[in-house]
């Protein structure tokens, strides 16, 4: 079966180029194929992360609207193991730098959606908001919607954020100096409960 298949794809590609040169704008054809290559590649992310990178499950993070540099940073640190993961290390090592850039641009261009998270503890949200203003808002600006060099917290999945905080606290995942200081202060002043309140608040932001 393999033998009769050999090389036919390239043969077809040559045909396309020849046809394109005479009958249609070659550039448009190339762009279109490139776009669809990225579409198909991104399609292998979305059965886990949700259509367009917006999920509804409680633990897998949504990746829509993620700043491109943050996306690339996460993938590269998954690849080298400096960012602890369950499956994402094994997945991230499947992609080249160029592919990661293309995926970062693709998902970065999709709006982040905030479907309801019924598992949120509404009773701690107000207190979480006050704590967030004190310990988090200087970097996670605009209620955690954006900020320089940080991921989106507003409406991010609660269970995912719990796992991330656990990884930072156990030092399995590296923190910037300022983040480490804020984490230490929050832990000293309010303990793990303080983190829990803040995460419930950020998950609840619409």
């Amino acid at each position, binding site marked *: 079966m393999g033998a009769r298949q050999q090389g036919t794809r390239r043969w077809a590609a040559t045909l396309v180029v020849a046809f394109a040169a005479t009958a249609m704008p070659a550039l448009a054809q190339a762009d279109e194929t490139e776009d669809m290559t990225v579409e198909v590649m991104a399609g292998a992310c979305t059965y886990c992360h949700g259509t367009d990178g917006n999920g509804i499950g409680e633990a897998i993070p949504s990746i829509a609207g993620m700043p491109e540099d943050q996306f690339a940073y996460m993938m590269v640190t998954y690849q080298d193991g400096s960012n602890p993961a*369950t499956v994402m290390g094994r997945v991230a090592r499947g992609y080249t730098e160029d592919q990661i850039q293309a995926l970062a641009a693709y998902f970065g261009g999709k709006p982040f959606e905030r479907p309801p998270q019924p598992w949120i503890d509404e009773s701690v949200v107000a207190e979480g908001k006050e704590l967030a203003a004190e310990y988090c808002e200087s970097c996670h600006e605009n209620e955690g919607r954006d900020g320089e060099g940080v991921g989106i917290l507003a409406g991010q999945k609660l269970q995912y954020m719990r796992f991330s905080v656990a990884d930072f606290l156990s030092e399995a995942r590296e923190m910037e100096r300022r983040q480490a200081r804020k984490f230490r202060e929050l832990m000293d002043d309010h303990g793990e409960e303080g983190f829990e309140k803040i995460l419930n608040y950020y998950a609840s932001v619409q």
Partner: protein
Amino acid sequence: MMHSTRRGFLRTTAAATAVGVVGLPHIARAAAPRFVIVGGGPGGATAAKYLKRYAPAAEVTLIEANPTYTTCFMSNEVLGGLRDFSTIQVGYDGLSGHGITVIHDLVTAIDPEGKTVTTQGGESVAFDRCIVAPGIDFKYDAVEGYSAEAAEIMPHAWKAGPQTTLLRSQLEAMEDGGTVIVAPPDNPFRCPPGPYERISLIANYLKQHKPKSKVLVLDAKDKFSKMPLFTQAWEMFYGYGTDNSLIEWVSKSDGGTVTGVNTETMEVTTAGAGTFKGDVVNLIPPQSAGAIARSTGLLEGGDWAPVNKGTFESLAVPGIHVLGDASIAAAMPKSGASANSQAKATAASALALSMGQEPPMPTLANACYSIGGPEHGFSVAAVYNYDDFENKLVPVEGAGGVSPIDAGADSRRREMFYAHSWFENMKADCWG
């Protein structure tokens, strides 16, 4: 023999030229291409949804016999009493809402020359390209005494639905001290880790509710998917390897292959380990591509459809694509996630070929979770690139693989959470 992709390409290119369509790829300027998708499982549903996303002007028709689809994924949690049956059911309103024509009818014939699909209800739908995603059928003949009727007594529960409910009710009705026989088939078959997740979750149920019972596994293989991870879970939770084990596994080498069943005596006969009586018997028979793939001539005498692994176009019948469990994707396991990933490549390729364009070179992936016990999940993943010269999907070296054996309880707990999120997002990505 001329290759199907090339032939398909020439024909569609000629058609585009003949009607004077210049300035492609803008689909609106051409006559909208028509696609018919046969089968509304994860592969077919995803193909329909993404065709419409890639080309809103395209006419997309999905034909599926059942008004509700019951997912095989997470059906083992239903069998183990951990999940409500209603959560594994999905409807087609989401797809209709995207402008896809959904017809609930059984496809009786696909005519590749006339380019029409006909149904039992007498509908005839024309297509430019047809995508066939029929899933599996069972080779009942492979096990003496087994049949569709016998499956009402010894359920396979390998297409989720009434069979799932039947097997669950049998497990519930069984008295403590009973034997549940699970008989997985030889490769290749749908969901390679599935039987072993099922064994785990039945054992979990027995441990809690009927601790004097056991699961007897009569296997047609010596090795199975995620074997070290399942073995570890069985040792951790079900006493596997001890005298009090809830699970006993008889491998192929030990004669475990099931050759025959007797539904009156509830006996199961093996190739070399003897005959066993089960109180509940879950016989998972060998499989092939769904019947419509065979009657359309897509199987070339085998059990599965040979395809161009870049476009999933049939190597036997040009203009017809076959994806998911029914196709031969070799390195990719027959899983829902594989079907979902392949469906996006298929949709993009069918669209490109219908307009005389070059199909994209796909990068695909599979990520699949198994639940081994309470708060205990693990995964297998791989990323594949298409090698057009060899017609192979090649796993990227250094990537993929299974969860580390020494990952520890916290990691297993996280993967349980991720498995359940995967399930919610997967349903939404396919049918939502």
